[in-house]
């Protein structure tokens, strides 16, 4: 039997008033907060640890463990920072969560702040999505007016300020320490670790940085319990995931399902591939994870199974491309992105992304040389693991995996351009409709 979908964070998205405090409360919102404020903060941390929730931003680090790294009773202010800088190519689930269910995020922020003893929380949202920013700001404002944010929240003695912060267009700010520099009003460039943010983060104080979806899980875990949460997913990947399926499928969109669902099942829910089309390659979670092919469709979408297949679950937002797409062109476009977004701090990434992109563009235009296929592997090897932060590693990821599965396409690109190998119009989703 197919794995059933499990709308939790998305359960009431069809309620037009869900973004309001009244709408959210009508479906049980802020009950978890009431419960949390009567609980010992350490017990909340333990609960999230026991639930096994793993960070939904891409790395999959255990959330409760991250929280427990914050030293308690150290006399320093603690901060919670929500990473809402969703900019990874292919990732499109945090912005929908913020637009549809902003109070789940806000309630999660309050509970998390209480647990880690933070009196100040920041929600750092990329500047290019004003509609998510205004929704979250509105939710924060309503929560303040209702006494859910501010001083002595619900008589608990707990005080919290929440600030919604707009970024200004820099993918690198999704890297947590670059985000901190940006939030302090500097160029968003990554910091050397250690010290880790849990010890010296925002304003050199202990800081927890969590992804939007991670935090939006918290109210449901606190409200419904560890056993409830663990009935979904696997031992190592418990819970459910807001999957966003994009590409050449009939019904691209949001599908919330337990971790462990397969890509084939998700594809079925998404109506399958568009007519006359088949899966050529797909990526489980963003452009920064190695790509897979049709032979991997039956693998469970979990952190562990994806790692075993040589890729990563990443953001859990599968991009699916059909046979009309040139893998050479797709990879070149991603590298142009990394080149544009490299912050320039370290040499391997700053220079390397330029070199890879330059060589790949030759292939895209049909001028690649046979020997350069190996040069590129070498280049990627010089960047991966040698860069200051994960952006460099990410930039070194698409090409080797593309070469592994589609070597013949790169070989063909030594004499035939990507557009001559694959008519670009064939991959348009509006072919014939409104095309010029």
């Amino acid at each position: 039997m197919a794995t059933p979908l499990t709308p939790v964070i998305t359960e009431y998205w069809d309620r037009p008033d869900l973004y309001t405090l009244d709408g959210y409360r009508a479906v049980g919102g802020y009950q978890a907060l009431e419960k949390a404020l009567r609980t010992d903060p350490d017990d909340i941390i333990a609960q999230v640890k026991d639930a096994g929730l793993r960070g939904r931003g891409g790395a999959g680090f255990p959330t409760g463990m991250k929280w427990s790294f914050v030293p308690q009773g150290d006399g320093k202010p603690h901060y919670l920072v929500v990473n809402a800088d969703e900019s990874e190519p292919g990732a499109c689930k945090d912005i929908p969560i913020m637009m549809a269910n902003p109070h789940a995020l806000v309630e999660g922020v309050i509970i998390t702040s209480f647990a880690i003893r933070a009196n100040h929380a920041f929600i750092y949202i990329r500047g290019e999505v004003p509609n998510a920013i205004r929704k979250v700001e509105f939710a924060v404002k309503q929560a303040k007016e209702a006494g859910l944010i501010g001083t002595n929240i619900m008589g608990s003695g707990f005080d919290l300020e929440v600030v919604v912060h707009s970024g200004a267009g820099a993918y690198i700010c999704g890297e947590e320490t670059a985000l901190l520099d940006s939030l302090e009003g500097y160029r968003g460039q990554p910091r050397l670790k250690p010290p880790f943010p849990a010890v010296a983060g925002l304003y050199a104080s202990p800081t927890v940085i969590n992804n939007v979806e991670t935090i939006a899980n918290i109210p449901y875990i606190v409200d419904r319990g560890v056993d409830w949460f663990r009935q979904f997913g696997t031992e190592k990947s418990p819970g459910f995931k807001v999957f966003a399926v994009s590409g050449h499928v009939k019904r691209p969109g949001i599908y919330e399902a337990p971790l462990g669902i397969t890509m084939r099942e998700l594809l079925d829910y998404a109506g399958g591939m568009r007519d006359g089309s088949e899966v050529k390659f797909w990526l489980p979670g963003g452009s920064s994870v190695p790509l897979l092919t049709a032979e991997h469709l039956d693998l469970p979408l979990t952190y562990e199974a994806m790692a075993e297949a040589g890729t990563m679950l990443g953001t859990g937002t599968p991009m699916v491309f059909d046979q009309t797409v040139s893998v050479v062109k797709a990879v070149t476009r991603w590298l142009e992105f990394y080149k544009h977004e490299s912050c320039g701090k370290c040499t391997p990434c700053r220079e390397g992304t330029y070199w890879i992109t330059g060589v790949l563009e030759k292939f895209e235009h049909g001028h690649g040389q046979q020997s350069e296929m190996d040069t590129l592997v070498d280049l990627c090897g010089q960047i991966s693991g040698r860069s200051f932060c994960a952006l460099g590693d990410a930039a070194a990821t698409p090409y080797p995996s593309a070469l592994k599965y589609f070597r013949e396409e790169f070989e063909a690109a030594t004499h035939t351009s990507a557009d001559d190998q694959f008519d670009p119009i064939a991959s348009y989703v509006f072919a014939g409709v409104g095309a010029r």
Partner: protein
Amino acid sequence: MPISENTREQMREIAARYPSARSALLPMLHLAQSEEDEITTDGINACAEVLDITPAEVTAVATFYTMYKREKVGKHHIGVCINTMCGLLGGDAVWDAVVEATNGSNNATTPDGEFFLERIECQAACTHAPVMTVDWEFMDDVTPSSAVEVLDKLRRGEQVQSTRGPVIRDFEATEHTLAFPDDGLADAPSVDDKMLAGLRIAKEQGMQGGNA
């Protein structure tokens, strides 16, 4: 033009949100841009004065982030996503059509001063590819002809509704929202069929889902 005292007062208001005033720099630059349609020397100086840092320090930040422009943005900022998903699913053709219809080019204001065109990176809306933005509000699932139609309407001053967001205002208004997000537009429709795709199947098929 020097930044007005009223705007400086608003900058101080933003700075007061943070434990450390300098944290306000990004939203302050958005505010300066909402007044001047670009980041000017006056805008930089005003931020520097309010935060008591040097103009060079502000400039270092302003030049790092792509949303800050060093050339006057026309009435509307038009973004066309050309990252892999959007570009290959048709964004490339949308971009060509937009360029042709406006006589514009990348990262520049069109000759009529109406639009600033930009080939933008992933807008976190791949499920809605190809994506265009008008003043950073979503215009999802565009085609070359629907994109040009939007531009025509904007040029004629007709009302254009974001597919997941409010009625389009202008670039300045969006930049102001980024500094002061409580803009009274939170009731804009923001959930569409694609965001409800999984939920609808779950309901139709009686999947207990999270309540099991």
